[in-house]
């Protein structure tokens, strides 16, 4: 199917790592063996797959990914990459290093357990999930009982290379909120050097549960970040997510969310702030499988240099999902003539009484606004940053969590400061 990457150096390095490691990996080996067959057959996804039309993993193909050897390595340098407002938060935190839980750096809440202690693996035909299933070692398992308010939780993933050689980490996080439970999860990925961070999230929300999930991807400039999130929301549940992409050479966040119960809500908002030759992909598949569901997606891209942003947003409304209310908007601000945005909305509607809208806009920095700021004494770089912040204002200001706003504002400010 994808001979392009099936026999690539990278795919081979993953398979040989599995062959050497499999008897030591926790959990059901049969599931891992099955996943390795899926991955060996598919290889790293490339443009021949419709789902990967705009994002090819060919840049990874020639790399040989090594096992990180960092079980007890000090993490001070990597923690310094986490935005200070995040570390200043007064809440429990879970720190992972190269895909493994670091109890010594964490203050885990009672509802946390380590994936490695009781791995749950399931078949999935998608190559990156199969890769994760094959090699995952650890992850956060969050089980919130009925009615529990888990408050705010910080989940940090630190990644690094191995003496200049690329490494790969495949954490598997499982989040289950029982009826009426609540949690605000702030997830941050940072690192240094060349590596692949390939996390998979399995998120299940029981009736009337609410998960706020703010994701900051601020990986190293030469790193790869490929995240897959599977979400199901039962009756009246609310998955409210915002993904902020700032780092990595190549990244993708693929969310597959199902409105499984009546009147559930799913928000898959995102912003991507890219420069140089960064490539970042937001792909969403939103299934309305029950009536009266509501979904919201506003995805904003700010693209400088030769950056390329991708948004693929698919909304499926099943026959029985009447009174569905779906909204999707993709906006891009191009700061350079060499930047590119690819936007592919797809609506597949089988119900006859639904409200679904989508739209896309592309624009440049407004010359009048830029001059107005400069005429008031604001230097060009700062003026540009203020206009970018203004473009993202609706996204960031809509976040109810003060800490999340402070963290993202910090990233925005320092990133533009560094570029100046």
């Amino acid at each position, binding site marked *: 199917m994808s001979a392009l990457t099936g026999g690539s150096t990278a795919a081979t390095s993953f398979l040989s790592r599995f062959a050497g490691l499999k008897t030591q990996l926790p959990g059901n080996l049969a599931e891992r063996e099955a996943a390795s067959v899926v991955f060996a057959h598919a290889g790293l996804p490339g443009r021949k797959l419709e789902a990967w039309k705009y994002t090819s993993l060919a840049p990874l193909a020639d790399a040989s990914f090594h096992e990180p050897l960092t079980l007890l390595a000090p993490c001070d340098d990597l923690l310094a990459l986490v935005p200070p407002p995040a570390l200043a938060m007064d809440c429990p935190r879970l720190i992972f290093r190269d895909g493994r839980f670091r109890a010594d750096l964490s203050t885990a809440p009672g509802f946390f357990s380590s994936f490695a202690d009781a791995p749950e693996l399931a078949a999935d035909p998608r190559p990156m999930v199969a890769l994760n299933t094959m090699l995952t070692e650890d992850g956060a398992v969050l089980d919130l009982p009925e009615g529990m308010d888990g408050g705010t939780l910080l989940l940090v993933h630190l990644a690094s290379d191995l003496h200049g050689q690329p490494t790969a980490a495949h954490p598997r996080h499982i989040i289950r909120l029982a009826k009426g439970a609540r949690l605000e999860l702030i997830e941050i990925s940072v690192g240094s050097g060349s590596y692949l961070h390939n996390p998979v999230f399995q998120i299940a929300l029981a009736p009337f549960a609410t998960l706020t999930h703010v994701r900051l991807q601020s990986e190293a400039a030469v790193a790869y970040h490929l995240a897959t999130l599977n979400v199901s929301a039962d009756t009246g549940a609310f998955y409210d997510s915002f993904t902020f992409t700032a780092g990595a050479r190549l990244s993708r966040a693929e969310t597959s969310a199902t409105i499984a119960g009546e009147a559930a809500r799913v928000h898959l908002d995102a912003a991507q702030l890219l420069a140089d030759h960064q490539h970042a992909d937001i792909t969403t598949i939103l299934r309305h499988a029950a009536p009266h569901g509501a979904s919201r997606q506003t995805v904003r891209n700010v693209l400088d240099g030769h950056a390329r942003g991708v948004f693929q947003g698919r909304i499926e409304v099943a026959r029985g999902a009447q009174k569905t209310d779906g909204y999707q908007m993709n906006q891009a601000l191009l700061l350079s003539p060499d930047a590119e945005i690819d936007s592919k909305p797809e609506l597949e509607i089988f119900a006859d009484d639904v409200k679904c809208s989508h739209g896309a806009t592309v624009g440049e920095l407004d*010359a*009048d*606004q830029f*001059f*107005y*700021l*400069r*005429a*008031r*004494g*604001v*230097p*060009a770089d*700062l*003026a540009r940053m*203020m*206009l970018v*912040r*203004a*473009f*993202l*204002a*609706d996204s960031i200001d809509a976040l109810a969590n003060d800490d999340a706003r402070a963290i993202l504002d910090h990233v925005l400010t320092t990133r533009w400061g560094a570029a100046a």
Partner: protein
Amino acid sequence: MSTLRIEGLKASIGDKEILHGIDLVVPAGEVHAIMGPNGSGKSTLSYVLSGRDGYEVTGGIATYGDADLLAMDPEQRAAAGLFLAFQYPVELPGVGNANFLRVALNSIRRTRGEPELDAVQFLKLARAAMKSLSMPEDMLKRQVNVGFSGGEKKRNEVLQMAILKPTLAILDETDSGLDIDALKIVADGVNALRGPDFSALVITHYQRLLDYIVPDRVHVLAHGRIIRSGGPELALELEANGYAQIVAEAA
């Protein structure tokens, strides 16, 4: 105490020359008015002096004190004391007015090597300025010029001027679209800054504004040249007779 000195200034938009050689000196402490019919180059002069893109200077010089204005970025000109009050103030959705004013003030202070103001110091300053301009305080909380009436936008320009305290203000038809109350507020804002270190170039089509900001000199701009200069009485003459006669005499 700096003098604005413009000599032989020529400027084009694309292939079209708009300013054909402007000579003008505005000494410190003086307010000069530039009047002229539509299309005479008034706005072009204000944009060239403030450094907007899209205008090509093809000849002449413009200096303010020792500073070569034409060699500077717009933000450097602002730090040198220049302030352009826009004919059409720009809306900045997503930018709060208080934040905008503080960033502008601190940018200028930083360039000048002065200490920046923190949020508390700034708010104190802004509130005092708003009070003196009879502006409601909620204007600080709104997004810059978004949903402002024409009069509110011009008042906001005056507020910026009061906070940034320029030493050289260029008012580009600030009076257009203003009722008499708003006009007085704008004039009060400018007059409050008047002093030996402050000079202004008041660009206007009508004499009305000059009843409130009384100029030391009046210049008539037509077809990209200053064709006549005089005292405040020249504005009254223009008001009575229109531009046609003076333009015809100069031709």
